[in-house]
């Protein structure tokens, strides 16, 4: 992130923070994960269409293919990271009561990491 931080405004660089005291990294992380997701989502859509109604064995064979397994893990990580960043902004925009906001922000993180861990474990279990 050090290189990306150079792209912030001169004032922000001098103060070491944006107007809110933070946020530059969040903005960049959202864009970088978005960029990574463009090819990954296209790959997912093509792959899913090819497996519509496919029997269990065919799906297993597809995920067990090393490059498919790697792409799937990358997709899960990038998508859930991107989702967590996005949902965080939605919560911050609409929930103003401090206690509810923090509860939801924590829930957002825990659920995202939990779902990601479970999905990646499933891929590894099939592929390894």
């Amino acid at each position, binding site marked *: 992130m050090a290189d990306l931080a150079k792209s912030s405004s001169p004032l922000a660089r001098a103060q070491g923070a944006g107007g809110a005291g933070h946020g530059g990294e969040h903005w960049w992380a959202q*864009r970088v994960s*978005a*960029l990574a*997701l*463009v090819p990954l*989502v*296209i790959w997912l*859509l093509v792959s899913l*269409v*090819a*497996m*519509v*109604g496919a029997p*269990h*064995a065919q*799906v*297993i064979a597809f*995920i067990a293919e090393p490059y498919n397994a790697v792409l*799937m893990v990358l997709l*899960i990580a990038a*998508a*859930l990271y991107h*989702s967590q960043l*996005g*949902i965080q902004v*939605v919560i911050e925009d609409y929930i103003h009561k401090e206690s509810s906001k923090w509860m939801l922000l924590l829930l957002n993180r825990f659920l995202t990491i939990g*779902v990601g861990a*479970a*999905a990646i*474990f*499933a*891929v590894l*279990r*099939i592929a390894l």
Partner: protein
Amino acid sequence: MAQKQAVSPAHRPRPLSPHLQIYRWPVTMGTSILHRITGVGLSLGAFLIAWWLIAAAAGPDAYGTFLILADHWVGRFVLLGFTLSLVYHLLNGIRHLFWDVGAGFRVRTANATGRLVYGLTILVTLAIWLAGYWVKGDLG
């Protein structure tokens, strides 16, 4: 010159303050809120992808249950919503990335690309579903 200045302001329609009941939504307002709504929807959709993978890892029985539910009309309805959301968020996300490098910011351009995204979302989703039915063998 003086005459023109005296005439033109009277003939130019004056801007009106937005009246909430009749105020027309600009294209960019619709695309923006839809981006957020589909983003939230896709975050919930992540549970579906996780369920698909976990069911596949759990074995043929769990995967069979997944297939039965996905094939039900409710499952298909959810999957159609998921496809629409994913395609829209992907296409409009690319539009956002162009804005982030400073391209396509003129109002006319932003409105045109917004309509383009709407149109392409329908077309690409249709193409994906036709391809899906074809793969499944329902189209012969």
